[in-house]
């Protein structure tokens, strides 16, 4: 049996070193970006839900709009910031995994912020009087609402992960697709397909799909469990 699928399966089955290296880097970059985006986005989204200030509507619209930010544009922005003549050029981060993490964080952040804002705003409407009565002010309510909204928030985090693991544009521009250094699953698929090296491309495609499927199944299961268990 020959052809790209056969090659793909034998690559996966044999645990090909180059393949594993690419998968490892992709996971490292995307998971780091998700983590960073959550660290910034969860409190920021919650604050945006509870705070009242002039221009709040504009900020919300901006984050909603940024959910559709094209990855190549995010890549370009980070590229300009990190390039030698850019404001952060002295850090020499361009074409490193760190640069890719920054670019993907930028991509995921609006999703996390917008979803958190909407979840927390709904919860706050329900909890406001009770929390004030129990002695929790707005600031103290933030962690409470984030925790009580954990199941819904997981969906947002997952959407962020999905977006980051699927995009090519941002990591390609700021990472440069350097073999063994900044090559991720998506950039490798692009390159190997162009080269006609379909086996590796298909292998990566299968793994990418499996990963997304597994994560979504896990999140769905967690949501169902929580509904039954937590009410």
């Amino acid at each position, binding site marked *: 049996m020959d052809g790209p699928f056969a090659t793909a399966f034998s690559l996966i089955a044999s645990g090909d070193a180059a393949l594993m290296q690419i998968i490892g880097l992709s996971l490292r970059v995307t998971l780091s970006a998700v983590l960073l985006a959550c660290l910034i986005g969860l409190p920021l989204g919650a604050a945006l839900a509870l705070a009242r200030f002039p221009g709040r509507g504009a900020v919300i619209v901006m984050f909603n709009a940024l959910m559709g930010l094209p990855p190549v544009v995010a890549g370009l922005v980070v590229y300009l910031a990190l390039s030698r003549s850019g404001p952060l050029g002295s850090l020499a981060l361009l074409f490193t995994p760190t640069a890719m993490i920054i670019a993907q964080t930028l991509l995921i952040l609006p999703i996390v912020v917008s979803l958190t804002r909407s979840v927390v705003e709904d919860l706050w409407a*329900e909890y406001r009087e009770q929390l004030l009565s*129990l002695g929790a002010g707005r600031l103290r309510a933030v962690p*409470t609402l984030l*925790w009580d909204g954990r199941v819904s928030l997981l969906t947002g985090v997952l959407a962020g992960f999905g977006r980051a693991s699927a995009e090519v544009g941002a990591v390609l521009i700021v990472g440069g697709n350097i073999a063994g250094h900044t090559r991720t699953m998506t950039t490798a698929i692009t390159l190997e397909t162009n080269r006609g090296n379909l086996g590796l491309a298909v292998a990566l495609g299968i793994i990418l799909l499996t990963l997304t499927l597994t994560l979504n199944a896990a999140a769905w299961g967690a949501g169902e469990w929580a509904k039954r268990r937590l009410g």
Partner: protein
Amino acid sequence: MTAAILPLELRAMGYAVGAAALLSDITLTIPAGRRLMVMGANGAGKSLFLRLCHGLIDPTSGQRIWADGSARPAAQAMVFQRPVLLRRSVVANLDYPLALTGMAAQERRFMIARTLDRFGLKDMADRPARLLSGGQQQRLALARAWAMRPQVLFLDEPTSALDPSATRIIEKMVAQFSEDGITIVMTTHNLGQARRLAQDVAFLHSGRLIERARAADFFVEPQTAQARAFLAGDLIW
């Protein structure tokens, strides 16, 4: 022991949204240790009255003066018509307000154990609060309020969503709170319940306090035409 926060003195307290006065000119002293039923028809302003007293909102006119001089004393609690329980276990729900006061973990555990015991919640300690029945949820809300060791407890129609047996349980608990020396301020439009629990009555009509009396007098001989009509409505039904 913290300073006594009661009596609560309301001086010409009012609340308006724009030009619409929802409550006006409420002058009333709520003394310690009694059960006050706030009565009146739907829309008379009963819930709003409780929220103003409890400090969830501030009056737009007049004053709300606690005996300890603070703007919003901590030694008060409120039970809502539909209690909001956190999406956590029964124990975590009891722990939440105690942790907010900065109580040490050991003392909190002791207080929670006492509360579970007293309110018969021991066998559901680890159950998710949101999955309890309506009556159990309200019982937990009362337990949570009790654990906060309030001097005054506000209750906003705590049994209106409950069946008669759950209602009886809640009423019994309210009576026990009262025996512990906790001042009760409660709204209800269940006249039977008001008769069972009231020591004093404040009767609201269209956002004004038009009658304030001892329960014994109010139910026998209301002074205003509106209160008479309100009480008569009960007989007609």
